[in-house]
């Protein structure tokens, strides 16, 4: 291992001095990259980044395929087995487990031992690790939290709530003013998963939440019921917009823009459309989800998006070089800045763009999340459990009285999924 590294280093150095060009310009052949970044801004960012990689390796024939983000989630199974690219995007944690277990992702632990990665990517190493090995590299992550209308809070004389009592008191005043506290569109279910994550993380804590994800806690457990009881307080006071089961998360944005709802529990990706809809930074602000149980340390959701090398890739050498390139601090600073992805860089020595939401998010995740950082409900829980549970959450938000029935159903699914 060490000798090959030395040998290739020597070769690189030789190439660099002889050609006077970039050290690794010797990469040749084809590099097939599959991306799920189909939204316009991320797509442009990725294409620009690949363009810079191409400029460093002019002899490499790079072929990029961008697949619709939703379609990608099912197509990945086919292309990993049949016609594998050299690099593919995906998600961290449990979401990559099926492919790791089927032997379809390349073990890239060797990359994680290189100092450039080992020293700078420590915070996300856990999310990339299964069975003690790393299976890919992250390229971006983003905070979740409450995005709210500062002007409405000002009008009603409210301040950012720090505790659950503050939160409920705030919500009461917002509802009294004829608005909903929160907008949400639960048609595609996962938004309700975010609510469960936060209330459960605040009620029972990160370790309990992860224990649940691992299938060690019954859904009918009293501690889980406590989570739902807290959630129900908001539902019963009319805290959520009506008919949310009919809307997607984008269709729920206008409620906030029009001032019919005061806040949105969302990922940082909601900021761009809210700004585009005309909300200025004076009207829009962010706060960390309030404390419910002061005895559990604060924990956050911060989903991580990743790059992987399929086990059947043809040009793994170039693929590894590409992963090194993606996580380098320069690229991380560039692709995560406000005019590109507008998210948080995963490289500790990268700099964060001057954006009030990114700054707050970074501060929150790096210093005010002692409990841990979860990925997201449908990435931490196994797919089947997540699908059933999120459907149950949606039902609970519409018919809170069905809770016992829902929990019994989920308990049955748990017994099967984790056998």
């Amino acid at each position: 291992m060490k000798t090959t590294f030395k040998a290739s280093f020597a070769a690189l150095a030789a190439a660099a001095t002889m050609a006077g060009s970039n050290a690794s310009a010797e990469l040749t052949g084809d590099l097939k990259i599959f991306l799920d970044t189909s939204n316009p801004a991320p797509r442009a960012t990725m294409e620009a980044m690949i363009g810079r990689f191409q400029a460093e390796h002019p002899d490499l024939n790079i072929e990029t395929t961008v697949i619709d983000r939703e379609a990608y989630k099912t197509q990945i199974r086919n292309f990993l087995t049949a016609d594998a690219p050299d690099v593919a995007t995906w998600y961290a944690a449990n979401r990559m487990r099926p492919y790791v277990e089927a032997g379809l992702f390349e073990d890239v632990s060797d990359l994680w031992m290189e100092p450039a990665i080992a020293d700078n990517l420590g915070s996300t190493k856990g999310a990339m690790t299964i069975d003690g090995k790393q299976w890919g590299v992250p390229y971006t992550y983003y905070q979740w939290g409450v995005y709210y209308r500062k002007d409405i809070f000002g009008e009603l004389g409210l301040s950012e709530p720090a505790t659950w009592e503050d939160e409920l008191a705030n919500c009461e005043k917002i509802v009294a003013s004829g608005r909903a506290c929160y907008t949400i569109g639960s048609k595609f279910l996962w938004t309700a998963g975010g609510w469960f994550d936060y209330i459960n993380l605040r009620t029972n804590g990160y370790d309990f939440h992860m224990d649940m994800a691992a299938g060690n806690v019954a859904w009918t457990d009293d501690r889980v019921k406590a989570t739902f009881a807290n959630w129900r307080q908001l539902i019963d006071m009319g805290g959520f917009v009506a008919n949310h089961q009919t809307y997607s998360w984008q269709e729920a944005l206008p409620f906030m823009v029009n001032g019919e709802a005061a806040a949105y529990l969302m990922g940082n990706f909601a900021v761009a459309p809210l700004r585009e809809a005309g909300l200025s930074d004076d009207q829009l602000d962010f706060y960390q989800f309030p404390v419910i149980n002061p005895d559990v340390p604060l924990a956050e959701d911060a989903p991580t998006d990743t790059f992987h090398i399929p086990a059947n890739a043809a040009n793994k050498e170039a693929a590894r070089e590409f992963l090194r390139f993606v996580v380098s601090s320069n690229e991380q600073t560039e692709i995560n800045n406000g005019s590109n992805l507008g998210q948080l860089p995963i490289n500790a020595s990268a700099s964060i763009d001057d954006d009030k939401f990114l700054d707050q998010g970074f501060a929150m995740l790096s210093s005010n999340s002692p409990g841990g950082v979860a990925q997201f409900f449908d990435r931490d829980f196994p797919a089947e459990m997540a699908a059933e549970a999120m459907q149950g959450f949606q039902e609970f938000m519409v018919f809170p009285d069905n809770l016992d029935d829902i929990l019994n159903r989920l308990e049955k699914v748990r017994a099967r999924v984790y056998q």
Partner: protein
Amino acid sequence: MAVTDTSPPARSWYKRNEIAVTPWLFLAPAILFFLVYVLVPIYQSFSISLYNWDGLGEARYVGLENYVELFDDSAFEVSLWNNLKWLLLYLLAIPAGLFIALFLNQTVAGIRMYKSLFFFPFVISQVVVGLVFSWFYLPNEGLLNNIVTFFGFDPINVLGDPALATYGIIIAGLWPQTAYCMILYLTGLNAVDPEQVEAARLDGAKGWKMLWYVIIPQLKPATFIAFVVTIIGALRSFDLISIMTNGGPFGQTRVLSFYMFEKALSEYGFRMGYGAAIAVVLFLIMLCFIAYFLFSMWREEKEGR
């Protein structure tokens, strides 16, 4: 060698068996494709339904376990009932199509344009129909609720209410399906024998009696086709559900085909065995209808001889 052969020169094997072989040669492409794309997949579905398989790793044989689980699965039960609702209510497209066809079967200026306007919903994609109807049903800004509130009623969220959502989708599906049945009947009405109508009129038949005893019996072929396409349409109702509610709210608008897709092929699915078991149940239901259709066609052909 020396024997002189008096018989005609030996014919090739093909020439000797031409009569017997030719029909099979003509059938061969159809048989091949039917085998590869229909029979083998049916067999495969049956066999996969006996396994527990995520589509990637090892398949594990579990016998009838998937079916046992199906009978205990409330989501499956909901889907089955919804399929029944679809089957029964979708049949409304047949009488509706018939009456529109009767209404349009006249010669006035611009009738061709009216006919094409009525046929229009069948031409546009199901996806567009689904989108249009989901906007129509929108809880606050939708046209339906504007009408409902104009008359002083409370607004309703059709697609968000588990009791109404399936009916809302079926109504959306009936719109193009009625147009389809209408076209079938319009063609059928062209073939109605004017002499019989004349004779019936002389005997004093008119109105409903004329329709029931003279016109409808002559439309029997059209009715049969309309019945077949409507039943198949109802069992295939997938795109509308996917577009309008995505199976929700909380899975109350799923039908078997959608549930199969969710379990086997969607983002959180990949229980291939379970999905295959659902597909087998759906296939058995379809088989009842297919058997009936084949039987009635066979009977008709026998009568025709």
